[in-house]
């Protein structure tokens, strides 16, 4: 079968994804998760029949315009495609960065065009041919977003963001994606926020939006990591919990707990403190296997499926 990208014709085998075919043909297509989650490899179909699964999870407006996840698109006939245009991706510049722990940095990115993104959602950064997704921990003013970036040694993006990024350096921000956002419709509803690693970033966004909106119900924040080094913003969260009577913060680690931390798998720690979740609004973010386990356990503990929002941080597949 034939695949046309930006007017150039390439071969695509039966069952092969558009992403694989284009990469094999030497086209430079940004990509990251290869699971239809990050949006890095989104391209637009200009003619041909779109397999529905290639558009799963995309906004309706995008679907209508023919956007597809190249990594999920296995054409059943000839397709013509083009790279994503303006409007879905905005130019941006590094504003600043600071270390939050030995492995996590807070990175501020200034948007040069409006992007309708909320704290808790995630965006994909494109720079020098690489693309990686990060959650928005906060919006500072309307045009600066805060990301929490864990340094992955040898990674294509995180060492740059954590250690080398200088104010003014350019990159592109694409998005947003994800549904882990605070909705102020039920101010008395108990909130249960559970994250591992930089899964704290969207929860930090939800927590602050909830506090800013005057959320009156209890807010439980659980942050889990392998060891104390993996936790960050511990002092800040403790101080929020100390000054807000409805906020409880429980840091936990698998090993080497320091005073004030719990030890054990995060799902067991949550179950100890919050045995019943009925009626709660639940946010779960972090490593995919832990997210899946937590979703199931917190659902079985009573929370309604419609009240569970999650974000699995799918690792980049190179």
């Amino acid at each position: 079968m034939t695949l046309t990208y930006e007017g150039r014709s390439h071969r695509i085998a039966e069952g092969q994804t558009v992403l694989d075919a284009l990469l094999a043909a030497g086209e430079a297509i940004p990509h990251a998760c290869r699971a239809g989650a990050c949006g890095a490899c989104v391209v637009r179909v200009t003619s041909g029949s779109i397999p529905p699964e290639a558009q799963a999870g995309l906004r309706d407006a995008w679907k209508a315009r023919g956007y597809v996840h190249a990594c999920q698109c296995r054409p059943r006939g000839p397709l013509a495609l083009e790279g994503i245009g303006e409007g879905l991706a905005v130019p941006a510049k590094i504003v600043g960065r600071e270390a939050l722990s030995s492995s996590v940095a807070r990175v501020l990115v200034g948007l040069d065009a409006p992007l309708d993104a909320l704290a808790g959602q995630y965006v994909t950064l494109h720079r020098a041919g690489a693309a990686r997704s990060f959650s928005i921990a906060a919006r500072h003013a309307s045009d600066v977003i805060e990301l929490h970036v864990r340094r992955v040694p040898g990674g294509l993006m995180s060492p740059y963001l954590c250690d080398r990024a200088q104010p003014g350096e350019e990159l592109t921000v694409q998005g947003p994606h994800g549904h882990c956002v605070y909705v102020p419709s039920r101010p008395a509803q108990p909130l249960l926020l559970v994250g591992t690693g930089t899964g704290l970033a969207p929860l930090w966004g939800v927590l602050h939006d909830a506090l800013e909106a005057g959320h009156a119900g209890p807010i439980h924040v659980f942050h889990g990591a392998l060891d104390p080094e993996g936790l960050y913003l511990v002092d800040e969260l403790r101080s929020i919990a100390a000054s807000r009577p409805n906020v409880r913060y429980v840091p936990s680690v698998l090993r080497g707990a320091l005073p004030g931390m719990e030890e054990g798998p995060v799902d067991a720690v949550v179950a100890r403190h919050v045995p019943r979740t009925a009626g709660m609004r639940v946010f779960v973010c972090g490593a995919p296997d832990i997210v899946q386990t937590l979703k199931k356990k917190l659902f079985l503990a009573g929370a309604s499926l419609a009240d569970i929002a999650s974000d699995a941080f799918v690792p980049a597949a190179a």
Partner: protein
Amino acid sequence: MTTIYEQVGGEAAMNAAVDVFYRKVLSDDRIARFFEGVDMDRQAQKQKAFLTMVLGGPSAYTGKDMRAAHARLVQQGLSDVHFDAVVENLGATLKELGVADALIAEVAAVAESTRTDVLGR
């Protein structure tokens, strides 16, 4: 004549029904293993479509879908005992939602009609 789907509250009632039904299914040791590792949100959508169909609501569910969707599970040993367990959980769900016994029997009969497709016979 109104359908049972309309009597229990239509589309709006289905989300609550899925919560009850899915929680029962996941907690049932006879069948829980078939749900290991599945995406819960997608699974809930399928269960909502299933509940809508057996209650007589608007449904595009076909026997072919049922057959294809369960083929992998049949290979993993899905059999009559498991099908019976799901029907049992369905009945318990409807009872919890306040559906009368006579109507539950009607729904069970509709569910029963999918047995050959689900089990790939």
